[in-house]
């Protein structure tokens, strides 16, 4: 016969093993926080450092504002977007790796593979659509698509990690739809969705799971 405390320990093990094997728990709140800060820094560079960048605040260049060297601005924006994306992904992975190591968890598990697969389908689809919109001069669709497809990716991925990610995804989708309705404020919605929301959810998750 086992004793009472052994039964309690059994239940604790069942819960822990089930949770760790079905959800990716290495995701760090700090990943969100820093991804948000990088996004805001990127937007600040686009608007305040790039020549002609301020037209992003005046409704973007799809409103056919008279701007010289529009091509140059577009190239600069594309490169900046790529750098921001790579930096944000790298720093997220680094903080998650750090959390995994500290908690003695593995990063590459069956559930993290499922998480990655569920992220990739909407992200790659969205990425291809955005490139097509960009090339076809449908500028007003670029920012809403980024937010909506990223949101869809997170809603799907939320099943395989903390539930908060699911809700972050829903708020990103709503932000994207709002950006589509009010295209002149695209950059503001972009900063809200990729900057502020990441920072808020990152801090919430950090307080909830890592303190």
């Amino acid at each position, binding site marked *: 016969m086992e004793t009472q405390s052994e039964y309690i320990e059994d*239940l604790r*093990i069942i819960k822990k093993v089930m949770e760790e094997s079905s959800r990716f728990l290495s995701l760090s709140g700090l990943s969100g926080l820093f991804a948000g800060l990088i996004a805001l820094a990127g937007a600040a560079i686009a608007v305040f450092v790039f020549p002609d960048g301020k037209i992003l605040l005046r409704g973007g260049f799809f409103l056919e504002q008279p701007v010289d060297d529009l091509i140059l601005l577009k190239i600069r924006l594309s490169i900046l977007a790529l750098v921001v994306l790579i930096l944000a992904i790298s720093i997220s992975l680094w903080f998650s790796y750090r959390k995994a190591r500290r908690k003695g968890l593995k990063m590459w598990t*069956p559930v993290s593979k499922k998480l990655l697969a569920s992220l990739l389908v909407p992200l790659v689809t969205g990425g291809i659509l955005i490139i097509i919109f960009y090339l076809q001069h449908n500028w007003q669709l670029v920012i809403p698509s980024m937010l909506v497809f990223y949101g869809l990716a997170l809603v799907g991925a939320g099943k395989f990690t903390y539930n908060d990610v699911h809700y972050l995804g829903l708020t990103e989708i709503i932000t994207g739809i709002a950006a589509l309705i009010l295209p002149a404020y695209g950059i503001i919605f972009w900063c809200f969705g990729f900057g502020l929301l990441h920072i808020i959810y990152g801090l919430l998750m950090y307080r909830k799971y890592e303190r």
Partner: protein
Amino acid sequence: MKVDISGLSKFFENRIRLGIMSILIVNDSYDFNSLKAALCVTDGNLASHLKALEENGLIMVSKKFIGKKPNTSYSATESGEKIFRLHLKALEDIIRKK
């Protein structure tokens, strides 16, 4: 107060078997190496517990090749899932009625 412990299964008196079953309840299937990593056990130890569970019909084994590498994965059988759920319920009842 009398507590019904008839749902408890002797298969799960061992914590490694309990862990294996917990993983296979929430995952459709799980491969050997991932089980080993998740439960922090040695090859031999894990293999003997898996064999015991398989022989008693609680889990199923499927062997396939991924490229040239053999890959053995495990999943819970219907009766295995039933026995585990009864065990879990019995555990919870015992704790609750304390």
